[in-house]
């Protein structure tokens, strides 16, 4: 147990472990010390000088980001001296910083704007001296560098050097001629480079993908989890007018700290696809006929009751734990083969954060699927599907060849987000929601169950897969009540799957929980 130290910050007394910095101790006292260069996931250089605070008995203001607590310290973050110092830093930063707010993407989520509004000078005194000018540079496939806006906090340099361990950025020159430089013939193309855009407190490093796309104040932000691989980086889905415009990492010190990889970050366009299944469809001759949910659920219940023998579920690794679990329970009476699709890719670790990597298994809920018994090998499952009484496709887009393998199957039910060859072949197509359109959970490589939340409304009549499975279970007399929310669906999992017994959505919070025990054979 680390030795603890008591300090008073702005009148609030807190007890923190010895070695804690004042800036972190202040957070516990509910005080945010304004800062730029400091970041909890980067080494601290104390160069911006924004975090200078007054500490009683110290002759000079001290930088809160590197000063460690001493027992009995009394700190004032808003003393006259501290405020004047911050006002000074802001004025100095603004003498060369262009008045780009009207055309700068960072507006509305800019820390220079925020602190200047909060405590900067109303008018600068730099008068009519020309401002330093350098042209915009393309740093990499997605990152633009606008040197004029740079406040030289060096977070980007430290991230690439110390966290990505790919020293492609430097500080070039000296004094007020300094800028962030690169070496020609190298690009900012590291698999995790996009994080520098989030780290940049101002609009100096910006994303080409997001350039001029939306204003920060128009965005709705929803807590979610990246479906791209088994790492399960926590992310925020930014939407405007029900369209996903950006994904950003969300802090989770146990999973991804403050970062997400570029592949996950850029993978959001599928959430806006228009080629969705919007209504339940039943096969009528060569074509599909749209029906309502009541009819669709009846039809599905008939198919499930009427078949005997073997069933096959071919599921996407992006399906939620709730959906995977309840769909499997729906087919509990069959000799069941359940498989999950696992696209593979190259691993890309973030060298400076042990345990953080873009994983080879590009399926966000692979581990959840395995724990729920989706353990069949894909080609074996396809072979079994050829003679199965009922085949359920859960959010998978099969290839033409794979669909052809289903020719001999009894009934094919497609729980589908997008239209595909599989939905064309299916006898019954039920429209389901994507992770962006529902609440649910994924289980990551460390067996941490994490919640994601609904960021946009689903198209047409789409509903979560767990919902329709729940309805079928009630119709079949298997359960008394169908779960009405994802939380209820999750709680219901515990009945059939001991790994989840007793766990609730509420307990998972926003950083998730590692499962206590994992059944044998469920390892990812």
């Amino acid at each position, binding site marked *: 147990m680390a030795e603890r130290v008591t300090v008073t910050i702005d009148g609030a007394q807190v007890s923190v472990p010895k070695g804690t910095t004042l800036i972190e101790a202040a957070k516990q006292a509910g005080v945010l010390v304004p800062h730029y260069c400091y970041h909890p996931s980067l080494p601290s*250089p*104390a*160069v*911006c*000088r*924004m975090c*200078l605070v007054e500490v009683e008995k110290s002759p*000079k*203001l001290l*930088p809160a980001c*590197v000063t460690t607590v001493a027992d009995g310290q009394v700190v004032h973050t808003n003393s006259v001296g501290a405020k*004047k*110092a911050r006002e*000074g*830093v802001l*004025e*100095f*930063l603004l*003498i*060369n910083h262009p008045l780009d707010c009207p055309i700068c993407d960072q507006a509305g989520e800019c820390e220079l704007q925020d602190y200047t509004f909060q405590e900067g000078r109303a008018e600068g*005194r*730099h*008068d009519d*001296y020309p401002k330093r000018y350098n042209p915009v540079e393309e740093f990499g496939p997605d990152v633009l560098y606008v040197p004029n806006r740079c*406040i*030289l906090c060096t977070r980007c340099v430290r991230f690439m050097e110390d966290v990505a361990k790919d020293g492609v950025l430097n*500080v070039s*020159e*000296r*004094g*007020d*001629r*300094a800028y962030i430089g690169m070496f020609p013939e190298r690009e900012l193309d590291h698999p995790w480079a996009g994080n520098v855009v989030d780290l940049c407190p101002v609009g100096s490093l910006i994303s080409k993908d997001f350039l001029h796309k939306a204003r920060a104040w128009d965005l709705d932000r929803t807590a979610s989890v990246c479906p791209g691989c088994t790492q399960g980086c926590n992310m925020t889905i930014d939407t405007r007018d029900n369209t996903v415009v950006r994904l950003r990492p969300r802090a989770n010190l146990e999973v991804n700290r403050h970062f997400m990889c570029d592949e996950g970050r850029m993978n959001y366009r599928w959430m806006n696809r228009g080629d969705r299944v919007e209504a339940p469809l039943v096969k009528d001759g060569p074509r599909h006929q749209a029906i309502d949910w009541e009819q669709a659920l009846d039809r599905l219940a008939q198919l499930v009751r009427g078949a005997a023998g073997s069933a096959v579920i071919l599921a996407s690794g992006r399906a939620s734990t709730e959906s995977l679990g309840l769909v499997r329970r729906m087919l509990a009476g069959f000799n069941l083969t359940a498989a999950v699709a696992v696209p593979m890719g190259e691993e890309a670790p973030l060298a400076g954060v042990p345990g953080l990597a873009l994983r080879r298994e590009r399926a966000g809920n692979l581990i959840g699927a395995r724990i729920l018994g989706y353990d069949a090998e894909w080609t074996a499952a396809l072979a079994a599907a050829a003679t199965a009484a009922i085949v359920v496709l859960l959010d998978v887009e099969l290839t033409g060849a794979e669909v052809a393998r289903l020719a001999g199957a009894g009934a094919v039910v497609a729980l589908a987000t997008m239209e595909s060859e599989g939905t064309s072949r299916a006898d019954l197509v039920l429209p389901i929601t994507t992770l962006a359109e529902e609440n649910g959970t994924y289980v990551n490589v460390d067996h941490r169950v994490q919640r994601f939340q609904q960021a946009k409304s689903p198209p047409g009549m789409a509903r979560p897969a767990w919902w329709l499975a729940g309805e079928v279970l009630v119709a079949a007399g298997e359960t008394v009540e169908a779960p009405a929310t994802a939380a209820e669906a999750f709680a219901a999992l515990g009945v059939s799957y001991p790994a989840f017994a007793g766990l609730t959505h509420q307990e998972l919070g926003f950083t998730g929980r590692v499962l206590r025990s994992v059944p044998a054979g469920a390892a990812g």
Partner: protein
Amino acid sequence: MGYPHPSHPKETPVLSKHFGDAGARTYEGWVQRGGYAGLRKALGMAPDAIIEELKASGLRGRGGAGFPTGLKWSFMPKGDGKPHYLVCNADESEPGTFKDREIMRWTPHALIEGCAVAAYAIGAERCYIYIRGEFTEPLAVMHQAVAEAYAQGALGADALGSGMRIDFVIHRGAGAYICGEETAMMNSIEGKRGNPRIKPPFPAAAGLFGMPTTINNVETLAAVPHILNRGADWYKGLCLGNPKSTGTKLISVCGHVQRPGNYEITMGTPMRDLIFDMCGGMRPGRTLKAVIPGGSSVPIMNAEEAGDCVLDYEGVIAKGSMLGSGGMIVMDDSADVVYQVWRLARFYAHESCAQCTQCREGTAWTTKILERILAGKGKEADLALLLDLSDGMTGKTICVLSDSCAAPIVSGIQKFRPEFEAYLSGARQPALAMA
């Protein structure tokens, strides 16, 4: 001596005794002149005894900070098992200062001997001598002298047969005033940009390559063998003023005096004796206007303050400035104080490492304001602005370059305000054309 001028009776030649004496440069020549006896004696003493002697002598850092040398050496941990390093700061770049250059090019073995004693005293087996890149002659002379010292067995695995290892590495700088700051110097030796480090940790705890390190100025180290040879009491006795300022100080006098040069004075010597006796006073028809006593980073003194100022650490502080490096810039009535303040601000703006916001932007901004004033386009509010910005640049940064830029600005406006106002009112013609 007031090299290049003959020694003045009011000087106390200890370090400067052999300036101008080419024979002092060789190992043999130095031994003939009493050299390496101090090192021999030191190697026969316990390191703690050497440190105590240094403490008793009252020697303080001669690079500018004036920190007690013996005390600094005593901060080094003992028995920690880590490699210790001594760094000799030969980056001499403080405007007005040119003493370390003379010590190196005339008496290189004096420095070698002093560094060797210090290294032994602090448990360091390796000493890095960081010489600024522009000092081509000192570099050549020191390389030659170090090679000689190795050849003669004064350095190396068995220094003077003592069984102790003392190795020297000469490291050449590449043009950065800020590398004279001790933590920036360590970064520069490590192959990095010369950015000063935050303290704590202090060098004695984690310095060069993360190991316990002591950094001392050339003049400080050159004094060490003399203290061992002649005793702490002798050094302490060299004191004409405050007892906390002992020994001799090389004052590099430059600017508007008849005989600019390095003058070695006993601590406590009156400034007027130095300027008007030793340096021969003003040029014909000229009167003293201002003195910057300790290198450009200390406040400017006016003639009245200089008139009864005592040259030791406390004496100059009493007059509102600092002894600093002892680089004394003298200005007579022909000098344009506003122009020189601008030129100094330009110096600091050029040398800022760019880490801290106030320094990076403030040094450049104050330079622009002063330039505009000199171009006849200054505004009435500019003086108050300069003072306010200087306050914002003081006491808020990782190192004191920012404060050093503010010092001449604040003292210049405080003591020579009419000169600034003459530009503002148009009474004085512009000295610059704005770009």
